[in-house]
């Protein structure tokens, strides 16, 4: 595996791994909660014609581990946006937490994100649709990072309201120019994902079918 490209997002150094070369737009992989980028491109992505790259989120894999936590899905969207700035345009494939982040970035950068594929993986549901009882989140002090135990503790309980998630879908649908900016390949149905599945511009399919569609769009 080649050494990763190092990107800067505010005070964090992010590792962007090139898994495979190719011609055309890059496929950007966003891993799940507690995971890291794979060493090899998953076989299911074989038909993608362009390069395949994978980002380690803050506190994961080869990216830096900040002190004192403070993770939000929004700051991870900023991580993914740093990768997007490096790539120019990209089609996103996210697993679990990475699927939620892919949706956020598809809504926030509708011109740069040419399709987002939401797949099963760790951290898909987050903390659910509404906050639970207030608590002060403390990480596992015996843990050996990466992943940062603060990331595991905080991003397993961040609130993901369905109406918040659908606002990002609507922006992607209106501003991306793509007839179908979001594809759901996940089987798990978190509350946010159930609501997303009902929106115009979102369809369910297999990963190869979604990649074939997004490889064909400009």
């Amino acid at each position, binding site marked *: 595996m080649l050494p990763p490209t190092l990107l800067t997002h505010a005070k964090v150094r992010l590792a962007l791994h090139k898994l495979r070369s190719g011609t055309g737009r890059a496929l950007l992989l966003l891993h799940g909660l507690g995971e890291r980028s794979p060493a090899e491109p998953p076989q299911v992505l074989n038909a993608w014609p362009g390069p395949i790259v994978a980002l380690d989120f803050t506190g994961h894999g080869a990216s830096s581990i900040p002190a*004192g936590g403070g993770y939000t899905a929004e700051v991870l969207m900023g991580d993914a946006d740093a990768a997007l*700035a490096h790539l120019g345009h990209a089609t996103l494939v996210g697993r679990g937490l990475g699927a939620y982040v892919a949706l956020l970035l598809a809504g*926030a950068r509708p011109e740069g994100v040419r399709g987002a594929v939401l797949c099963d993986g760790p951290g898909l549901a987050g903390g659910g649709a509404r906050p639970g*009882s207030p608590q002060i989140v403390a990480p596992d002090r015996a843990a050996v990072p990466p992943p940062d135990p603060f990331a595991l503790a905080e991003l397993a309980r961040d609130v993901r309201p369905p*109406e*918040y998630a659908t606002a990002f879908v609507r922006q992607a649908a209106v501003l991306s120019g793509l007839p179908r900016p979001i594809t759901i390949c996940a089987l798990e149905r978190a509350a946010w994902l159930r609501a997303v599945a009902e929106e115009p511009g979102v369809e369910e399919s297999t990963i190869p079918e979604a990649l074939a569609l997004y490889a064909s769009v400009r």
Partner: protein
Amino acid sequence: MIAEEAVSYPGARRPDRSRFVDASGVRIAVYEWGDESARPLFLAHGGFDFAGTFDVFAPLLAEAGWRVVSFDHRGHGDSEHPALYSWDADVRDARAVLDSVSHKPMPMIGHSKGGALLTQLIEAHPHRASAFVNIDGLPGKRRHPDVADHERTRLVAAELAHWLDHRRRSAKKERKPGTIDELARRRGRMNPRLSLPWLRYLVPIGARRFPDGWRWKIDPSLRFGGFGPWRPDWSLERLPGFPVPLVGVVGLVQEEMGWGTHPDKIRPYLPPGARVEAFADAGHFVHIEKPREVADLALRFFESVGA
């Protein structure tokens, strides 16, 4: 942490002691006014402020026999600028400071974002507080202007792109330098009801001098506004169950930093025995505009409930 170019202000007194607390690896600056052996009272500032903004208010509480403890939020004042910021992290930092003072219940006062932070800390740990004065930080249905990235749901494409553009630039961002007067006037734009002499007093405390001028210490990556999934009415819905004696203090003059909480709107949600004190001729910074009145109100309240 002693200012190198002190500017005086009537009634203002720098803390008697300062120290740092390690909050999970983030250095948090802690300040104390009053006798170290006196009963502790916990004080939390608002967003984009710092503990030095209590330099008039805190001494009034200390003179009444309290050990007043406050701190700079992460990224604010003399606390460390960490890589990440979140609501949960701020509440956790506050608890770390509290742990450094006492594990026994103590009275607390919070302003604005500090009021909302302490509200959540007390809801999570009711055994840590004996009574609470919340100065214009009570939950409402309106978004809170000094709570970055937290209580916003309005998603506007331009706003999202603007936030991400700011994140892309923030590694290289620094605060704009200026003279004491320039920094005071700049702050005055967001705090229009506060006097220029007071704002000038704050500069050598909340700013640092560089060869090209003074710069506010606050982390340049922090930004006013923001967005996130949180809805303010979630906090409001929990208010009826608030676990310790509570007084809300609001100024009725609306201004940009204000939370726009009107007593009539909040009253139906108040827990039994709680009340809201409204000052008709003050804005968001009630404790700075009327330090004596707000301090006396808090002191009488704490005494009345045996806090």
